[in-house]
Every structure is written in C-alpha cells, then in structure tokens.
C-alpha cells in the first residue's frame, strides 16, 4: 500500500510567474526603445523601426491576453507526486 504525497498548485500561480517575467520583459523593452530613440539617426527610419518593434510586442500581448481571458485559472495542477511506502 502506498501513501501519495501530492503538491497541487493553482494554474494562476503560473500566470503570476508569467506576469513577473513579462514585467522584466517590459522593462528591458523600454530600455531598448530608449536606446534606439536616443542614439538612432534622426529621421523617419528610426521612428518606423521602433514603432514596428512596439507593434509586434503589442500584438503579442493582445493575442496572449485574449487567450488567457478564456482560461479557467482556478484549476489546479499536480506538479509533484511521489509514492511513500507505508509501514
């Protein structure tokens, strides 16, 4: 006979991790945009290229957000399961 040790985590826990990672991403993306605008050549190309970078990011967030809004984040996930022998 075995006793099960299960670790159940809500799915929202992983969403929280994703949000933390994305906040780092946003910070780095902002720094990248600042560098592009600060040191780029004055002209149309710099603005177009930077806008293209931001538009793709925005599309990524919109697509992810619209899918994530359909997910039931209250579900739980078994992330660790081990069987312990009983005496």
């Amino acid at each position: 006979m075995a006793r099960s040790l299960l670790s159940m985590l809500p799915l929202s826990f992983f969403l929280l991790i994703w949000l933390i990672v994305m906040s780092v991403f946003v910070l780095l993306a902002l720094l990248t945009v600042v560098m592009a605008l600060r040191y780029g050549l004055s002209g149309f190309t710099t603005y177009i290229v930077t806008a293209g970078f931001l538009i793709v990011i925005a599309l990524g967030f919109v697509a992810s957000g619209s899918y994530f809004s359909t997910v039931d984040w209250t579900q739980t996930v078994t992330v660790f399961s081990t069987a312990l022998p009983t005496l």
Partner: protein
Amino acid sequence: MIDLHHLPNPIPDEQLVYFLRRHPISLLGISVGTILILASPWIGYWYLLTFQPALLNDAIVFPFLALGSSAFLLFTWMFLFQNFLDYYLDMWIVTNRRVLNIEQTGLFSRTVSELRMYRIQNVTATITGVLHTILDYGNVEIETAGEKLRFVFEDVPHPNRVAKTILELAEEDRKDHLDTAVEEFALPDKKK
C-alpha cells in the same frame, strides 16, 4: 538622436562626405530569424492541429504552452531587435574635416571616437571572401602616425572608393593644417 546636419562638436566649414553603416547583407541572419519568429506561432499551431489535436483542447496543458511560447516569442523578438540595433547604431561618419566612429556593443556599451583628417596617414581597404567580392563590401582601416590609434569601418560598401576619398580628404586637410601636421608628425618645422 544623431543629426547629420548638426554633428557633435561642429567644426567650421565642415561638410558631410560619407555616412556609412555595415552592408545590409549583414542583416541577413536577423531577417531570417525575424521571419522564423513571426511565423513560428502559426507553424506551432499547425503542428498541434495536425499531430497533437488533443493538446489544443486540454484545459491544463494548452495554457502552459501558451504561457511558455508567448514569453519565448516576446523575448526572442526583443533579442532580434537588439541585434538589429547593434547594426543600426553602429555608424561611421566621414566629413571633409574628421572621421567619427560610433560603435554600439550590446545595449549599454557605446563608444564614440573622432579622428581629425590631417592626422590620418594610412588608409587600407580589405575585401576578403566570395560574397564580399561579388557585393563589393569590406573593411576600411584608418591609421594615424605615431600612435596606435586605428579606426576600422567593418563591412562597409565600396571600401576601395571610401579609402581613396579619405586619403584625398586627409591630403586636403593636411594642407590647411600644415603647422599642426608638421608638429604632430615630428618633421622639421618649415619656419626654422
């Protein structure tokens, strides 16, 4: 921003001769990467639809895939853009009075150096490789006398033409700065 009409530390009678970046062919890797990264969500979706359709309806696995792949795609996109910036922010500006060397290494490392034309003593153009020869791009090395200061324009288009122009401009500028040039090259002063 860098304005070609208002360069830093302007010199009187200065005129822009060349504005150089690496040849656009050096963007080939980034372009292929960008196409792949933008196509990958559709390729991934097609793969799941064809070979793993059960995963698309899985209430646990698919959100995990979406979380992971969205983070991966966004970070890869930023990595590609930063690589593009490495190309875009590297520039060499040649005027009739000086050479400006602006190099971006990574996101936070930037070097701006300047060399006055009359100090230039030797300019070498190097084209190595089949692709470089066909598309006529390569390195231009600029050396000054006495010091080990050396500018290298990497993978610029038409390096031979650029090298020839810089040598001519240096010769012209040296005539205008004869006294300074004589002092710097440690030649006998013409006034003595």
